[in-house]
């Protein structure tokens, strides 16, 4: 327990020290995870909305599959993306392996099902309310789905934050496709893993405190934004 208490003061000391390496690692973590969230949102929201609103054979199977994929093990995603991006693999020519780009790809794959599945549920719930009115006004298919998507934008924030949480917290995918290269593909979670494996538990814990604090701040900001918007738009 003492170690956990010490980790907070350790974290504060680390931040105060202004260590360039640490800030580089934090910055890279944010760049990778936020990029993955952006891509997964751009792809996942339309996907979720389309499944929610569409009627096609196999729809229920796809919904079950999408929900199940939320539980994709990060290390498995990392392995599959690694095999794809490896020089010996189909996309080797892109030369993306062991770069932050590969990490973004892996994390996007990991969180896309989360964002799409949660969006699907939110749109499907809202669709019950909106469907008749929208069809009465003449909005169909894509047009109607996009209208609902925009209307429930603040609820979708929760889905997006869930994706961000998963991305920022995982280590299995980024360590395989990134290689945890010092100064190039080392992020917060892989650094924590590294320091733990070196036996430097206090440092690992302090880094953990910093990571959690950052995610906490992002969540608090998003919540505040959502509250303000709900007051404004109803």
């Amino acid at each position, binding site marked *: 327990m003492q170690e956990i208490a010490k980790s907070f003061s350790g974290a504060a000391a680390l931040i105060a020290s202004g260590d360039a390496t640490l800030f580089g690692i934090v910055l890279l973590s944010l760049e990778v995870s936020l990029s993955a969230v952006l891509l997964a949102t751009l792809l996942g929201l339309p996907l979720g909305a389309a499944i929610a609103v569409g009627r096609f054979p196999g729809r229920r199977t796809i919904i079950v599959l999408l929900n199940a994929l939320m539980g994709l093990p990060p290390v498995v995603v990392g392995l599959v993306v690694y095999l794809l991006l490896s020089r010996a693999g189909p996309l080797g020519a892109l030369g993306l392996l062991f770069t932050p780009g590969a990490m973004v790809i892996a994390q996007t794959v990991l969180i896309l099902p989360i964002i799409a599945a949660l969006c699907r549920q939110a749109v499907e719930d809202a669709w019950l*309310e*909106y469907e*008749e*009115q*929208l*069809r*009465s*006004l*003449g*909005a169909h298919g894509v*047009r109607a789905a996009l*209208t609902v998507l*925009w*209307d*429930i*934008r603040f609820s979708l924030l929760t889905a997006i934050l869930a994706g961000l949480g998963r991305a920022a917290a995982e280590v299995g995918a980024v360590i395989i496709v990134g290689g945890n290269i010092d100064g190039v593909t080392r992020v917060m979670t892989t650094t924590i893993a590294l320091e733990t494996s070196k036996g430097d538990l206090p440092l690992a814990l302090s880094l953990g405190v910093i990571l959690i604090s950052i995610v906490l701040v992002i969540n608090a900001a998003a919540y505040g934004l959502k509250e303000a918007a709900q007051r*404004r*738009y*109803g």
Partner: protein
Amino acid sequence: MILPLRLEEVSFVARGRAIIERISLGVEAGHASIILGANGAGKSVLMRLMHGLLAPSGGTIKWNGEGRHKQAMVFQRPVMLRRSALANVTYALALAGVDRAEREAQAREALAGVGLLPLAQRAARVLSGGEQQRLALARAWALHPEVLFLDEPTANLDPGATREIETVIKAFDAAGTKIVMSTHNLAQARRLGDEILFLHQGRLVERAPVDRFFKQPASAEAAAFIKGELPWV
């Protein structure tokens, strides 16, 4: 002109139950038609069949001409988008193919017509129930529909808001829009209607001008309904 609308032997079956049973009727322009009936008689389903939100299980529904946007419907619970009152109306105009340059002016005119212009920039979802229903009517007005369907539009409103809504409906009627409205408020039916279509257990049991229906109902079911002895079907 998309009227007259003709229903021939229309049925609607859901979950094994016949909700509408072999209804044939014609809807003509020129007078306000009120659909009356107890809860469960099939009023809402009939309106949705006519408006095209539901497909009949049997029979045919034929309009005289093409014109998706020549009909509009106002529901018991208004559904507004998470944007300003004005934006809700311009959204409907955009769907109807109105040029971007003209949407705002037409929307403002519609809002003014129902007395909501001061609230044009207010978020539609924070308006009161009565204001939202007026907004729904403004949205319908902006489309200049030939036919306006209303499904129990004042069921959730207090008497003051109800009066405001009825004023707008009368304005539609005066402007030549065909009104097709369901209600189970007999007094309201008398105030707004020219003819009554009485439904009982999914069948059109009686159709008569409003005065004759209330003074001398031809069917036993209608007589019982007016006397208030048919709370549920």
